[in-house]
């Protein structure tokens, strides 16, 4: 026993740098490719070296592992968006939360990449439920209107989680935003304009600025630097906003400044859906939220997603309210609710896979089940939007994910409590 373990360890150590992951053949699945092949019935996916090699019927590739997916469904892994996965363990314990800062110098330049902890218990908890990547973002700010960058991280659980850094810059407008800057939307809008104006000044005068031969600017050099990608349209500005008139203000603001805009929240988005669609502005919403929770969200309604979709707005889904980090995976159920109120099925599925990949970058390697794409997908035991469906296999970087979680360990320790109360030594 001991000897064989020792030998195995030696073998793994000796070969782990040269041998790549095993090849996998998924057989007989219903596959939502989200690509030109559409939805395939009883089809196969062959995976090797971290990539999807082929997708089709009756594939004959020999594989190290075969997964029989009869009556099962394959989709790209869930792309959770705008949360604190890896950046927060317990919301109410500030010392475990890195997605918020009150540093006045860190607005648009606030970048979370190095704060991400791949060993957070939230990572496996969401991963076994189908989340394979996330766009982490600053949670909020009590200081800035524009308060930091979002990056795409893998839930692969290793120390190289970064997929793409600084793909978006986050901010807010309306009730919460104006509270930070003079108490009025009018002062908030002025502040936003000043940020962009100073960022332009910085681009045109940075030599003089560094030489100390320029007037003092209101924003930190780091923030103005960070805004360059917004000015040159590489990076969208993601603005939390709810009131219809505020959405219109931001659409005009984006047009005037020629920047890319994404709306987040958009409680009254359906009221100006045509205008949002015409401006080609994608929207991030929590499709479960139908509560008129503030005077700027009086028009909030459950049909918001389907009405915006109908008007041609490109939609991405957030998980449920304050649980969008710990339970980011349940975004698929929220998508199911959106479908029950009229959102087309495939658009709802894309709203937490392909669409965020398209909006925030990375759609050339993720978001479709097709040859050449990253092998990052989930095998479900039924309709992935259904509440009675579960993930049975999750694949990231071409490798099968270990399905253990802390929750399952606790469950197994206590499941027979009625017959055996001696839990402390039950590992």
């Amino acid at each position, binding site marked *: 026993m001991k000897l064989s373990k020792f030998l195995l360890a030696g073998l793994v150590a000796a070969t782990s740098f040269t041998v790549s992951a095993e090849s996998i053949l998924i057989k007989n699945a219903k596959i939502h490719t989200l690509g030109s092949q559409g939805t395939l019935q009883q089809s196969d996916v062959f995976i090797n070296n971290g990539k999807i090699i082929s997708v089709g019927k009756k594939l004959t590739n020999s594989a190290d592992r075969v997964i029989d997916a009869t009556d099962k469904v394959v989709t790209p892994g869930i792309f959770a968006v705008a949360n604190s996965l890896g950046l927060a363990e317990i*919301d109410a*314990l500030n010392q475990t939360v890195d997605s918020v800062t009150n540093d006045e110098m860190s607005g648009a330049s606030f970048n979370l990449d190095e704060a991400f902890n791949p060993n957070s218990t939230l990572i496996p908890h969401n991963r076994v439920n189908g989340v394979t990547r996330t766009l982490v973002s600053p949670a909020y700010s009590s200081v800035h209107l524009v308060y930091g960058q979002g990056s795409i991280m893998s839930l692969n659980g290793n120390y190289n989680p970064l997929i793409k850094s600084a793909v978006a810059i986050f901010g807010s407008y309306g009730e919460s935003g104006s509270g930070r800057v003079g108490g009025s939307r009018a002062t908030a809008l002025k502040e936003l304009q000043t940020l962009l104006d100073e960022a332009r000044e910085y681009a045109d005068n940075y030599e003089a600025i560094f030489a100390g031969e320029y007037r003092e600017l209101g924003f930190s050099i780091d923030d103005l630097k960070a805004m360059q990608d917004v000015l040159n349209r590489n990076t969208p500005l993601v603005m939390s906003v709810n009131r219809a008139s505020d959405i219109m203000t931001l659409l005009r603001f984006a047009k005037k400044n020629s920047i890319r805009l994404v709306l987040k929240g958009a409680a009254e988005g359906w009221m100006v859906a045509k205008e949002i669609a015409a401006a080609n502005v994608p929207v991030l919403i929590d499709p479960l939220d139908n509560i*008129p929770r503030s005077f700027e969200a009086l028009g909030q309604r459950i049909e918001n997603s389907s009405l915006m979709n109908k008007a041609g707005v490109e939609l991405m889904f957030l998980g449920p309210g304050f649980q969008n980090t710990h*339970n980011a995976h349940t975004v698929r159920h929220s998508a199911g609710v959106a479908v*029950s109120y009229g959102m087309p099925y495939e658009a709802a599925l894309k709203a937490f896979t392909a669409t965020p990949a398209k909006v925030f970058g990375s759609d050339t390697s993720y978001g479709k089940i097709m040859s050449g794409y990253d092998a990052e997908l989930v095998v479900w035991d039924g309709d992935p939007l259904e509440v009675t469906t*579960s993930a049975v296999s999750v694949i990231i970087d071409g490798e099968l994910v270990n399905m253990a979680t802390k929750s399952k360990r606790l*469950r197994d320790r206590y499941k027979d409590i009625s017959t055996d*109360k001696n839990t402390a030594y039950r590992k």
Partner: protein
Amino acid sequence: MKNKFYKTAIAALLSAVVVSCADDSEQEKEIIEPFASRYQVQEFQPVFIKNATILTAAGEQINDGAIYFKDGKIVSVGDDLSEPSDDDLQVIDAKGKWITPGIIDVHSHLGVYPAPGVQTSADGNEMTAPVTAEVWAEHSVWPQDPQFSLALAAGVTSMQILPGSANLVGGRSVTLKNVLGRSVMDMKFPEAPHGLKMACGENPKRVYGSKGRAPATRMGNVAGYRKSWIQASDYKKQWDAYNKSVEAGKPGKKPKRDLKLDTLMGVLNGEILVHNHCYRADEMAVMLDIAKEFDYKVSTFHHAIESYKIADLLAENDVCSAMWSDWWGFKQEAYDTVPENVALVDKAGACAIVHSDSAVGIQHLNKEAAKAMTSGVNMGLDIKAEDAIKWITINAAKAIGVEKQTGSLEEDKMADIVIWDGNPFSVYSKAEKVFIDGALKYDRANAELQPVSDFDLGAVKPEENRL
């Protein structure tokens, strides 16, 4: 036993008996029960729904079944009913549809934390002292909260509205029928007992500890509960003695009334049910010991994230657990989540409930129960729809003391009934028609039968109603 005695005592307090002591120098006035329910069952024609799949919450799934109700009450349920002959009978063919009892949420703050969520109407937490047993949630309920109608459209027919969890003892809860009224009394569930909100753990110790006063620790919490129960026991002793003297025809000195102790005495007398916000298993065990020390019963632990760790103890003590299907991690006492929690509690023979504590969650309790069921099934437990439906109906009714009136589809119970457009445990299913006491109070297909609060009226556009 306790119950009966208390009722007699109250009767003595309340009216004629007291007036009879003619030479009492204090002029005894007849005391009327304040804030009594003024809910009225709406008259409605008899209804016969046929060809439905029925989850009775009494243990059965009836395929191709029918249900007949009139005058607010269920007359019969089964798979062999013949159409009754009432002249004005409304017959609904529910082929392909499902029927369940009205959904009951044992943990809601609708009305006390209404929408919009602004400070001026955030009335759920009397955070001015750690024990505020004297406050009643019903006095904070805003009947025009637009969230009530959203819950109704999701099949919720009754709910317990609780004070928040800032305090060790937060005050009385109230159980409401989900009907709009001009006052909370129009909504109060007739004959439903009051609940008492208590809270363990982080919230009270944070709220008061941060003000530099007790409690600042969990041991401070426990000392706080026990101090209150000692006061309440003394108070009860005084009233018991007084009531006895009145019964004996020799009235002694009447104790001075204390609103706070009235409520706590109600618990000791078995009239008010304890609803205890408590996440951690070890704290629940401590709370059960306090209940034994002062001889009262805990009806339900709420937010009971760790009930699975003491499911045997909860079954033994006949205590319900009100749980989420998957919420976790927002604070440390919510860290040891297990999605199988509800199923494991149920499996141990304890009373399992899925609750919301959320204006959004209350609209998806059927799906939350479905998720909890799925977690249980995945670990190999035998749980069917006819079992899981109990978590949001009859078990919830039991927790708030209305299980004899509602919560299951059985003869003579209130006709609180939902017709779903499909299996209620599917993400795609919606409540189509909702009956409360036999009257159609919500119809998805008929805008005339969708209630609109004052707040909703013309809120977004003057000529329209907020949705």
